């Protein structure tokens, strides 16, 4: 069992209690994989799926794709692209913020500026 597989199964099973469309078979169909494969992913018998499949799975289950990708040990392609463009700057930034509390990190997030209107 893995954190990724456990989490996927737990969320899917919870959704299935209210909506039968979240059966293993139907979710597998909607994200474009075989039910047997999704079952193995949930049990942790195989490595987490590709980035694209993980993102589809996250959207299907109403989960944050970045969080599910992190559980799968992956970083989304768009984030990789951002870091590759200015690797020294972003590596430094991430290391600086490693131990920072959430509210300190939120302070460096760029806000939409409100002006005069």
């Amino acid at each position, binding site marked *: 069992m893995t954190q990724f597989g456990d989490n996927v199964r737990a969320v899917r099973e919870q959704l299935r209690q209210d909506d039968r469309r979240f059966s293993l078979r139907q979710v597998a169909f909607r994200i474009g994989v075989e039910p047997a494969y999704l079952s193995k992913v949930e049990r942790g018998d195989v490595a987490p799926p590709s980035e694209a499949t993980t993102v589809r799975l996250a959207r299907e289950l109403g989960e944050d794709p970045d969080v599910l990708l992190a559980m799968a040990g992956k970083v989304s392609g768009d984030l990789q692209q951002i870091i590759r463009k200015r690797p020294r700057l972003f590596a430094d930034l991430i290391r600086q913020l490693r131990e920072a509390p959430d509210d300190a990190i*939120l302070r460096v997030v760029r*806000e939409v*500026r*409100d*002006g005069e*209107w």
Partner: protein
Amino acid sequence: MIILENDTLDFRFPEVHEDARCSIGFQRTLRIPDDDTDYPLPPGLGPFPLRHLDDHAARLPDAWHRRGGVILPMHQAEAMWIDLSSECGYPFAVKIATGKICALSGDAWVNHLNRDPQDYVVLPEQPWLDGYCVERGVIRQFVAMPLGEGYTVEEQLSGVAAHGGLQVGAYPMKAERYGALLQEQSSMHYFGRMEAPRADMGLAPGGRMRQEIYDDPYGLDAWDQRHSSRCFITVANSMQWMAMTGEPPPLSPPTARTYTEMGLPWFEYYGGDAGAVAGAGKFKTISSVAKIAGAKGNPPLPDNEPIDVSHTVKLGRRGARQVREGAFTEVAGR
């Protein structure tokens, strides 16, 4: 604070409560015929792109830069709906205006909330807003038109073409009320349910649509008006968007007729027992885009013939209205 994330405005109030987050997005959609028929809800065709206005300051008129906020591209006569969600189910009061005229009350923008008439929608009860609340259970669709030609609600009600665009403001529920609400609900199952200033775009009233704007079930005292955030969304036409951002604008959406003839669904929403607010008296005097164009002797709106909608999908509180974007660009062949 407001953060721009994946073409969505993400309002966060960590100083009020860790769950106090809501998001507001702007969905591309079909323009329903402006023929005085009441249509069901059209689909979402994906979000309009949003960009920080400050990123393109060098190419903007000063008046736009002073407003702050974000920019969004719309084609002339294109329609939109506003996607409202509160991920954690934290209640919010959200004000929505076009050209600084409230889309619910028809009154000029003020930074506080009013209950009589109600000038805000309540999240998570209200999942979307498609237009101006003209009658109880009926809205007139938001349709982009150039400012200065007499079509926009701003010009029709204030007599001037000064602001254009859209304005939103979010007010979280007071933390203590939220705490009490969570306790009440612990025994129930709760679902969170450029130099061309004269070429500004504004929003005008289009065709009629069946949509209820829900009455505030909590009361004015529930909202924390000491903590609020607001944002001006400047609407740029396609040429301005290209010139400012260097990005191509989205392709024109398919027409309502093409969409319907493909057998694709429209939507009806049932919000349970929630009461709906009455239409704003001020909107009784406004005219729709098609009516104004007719009176001016302008060419009629393109693709405005009545359509027969037979395939509607009923949505409950957790129903998803969104339709995948890719299929439409392929279907429409644009």
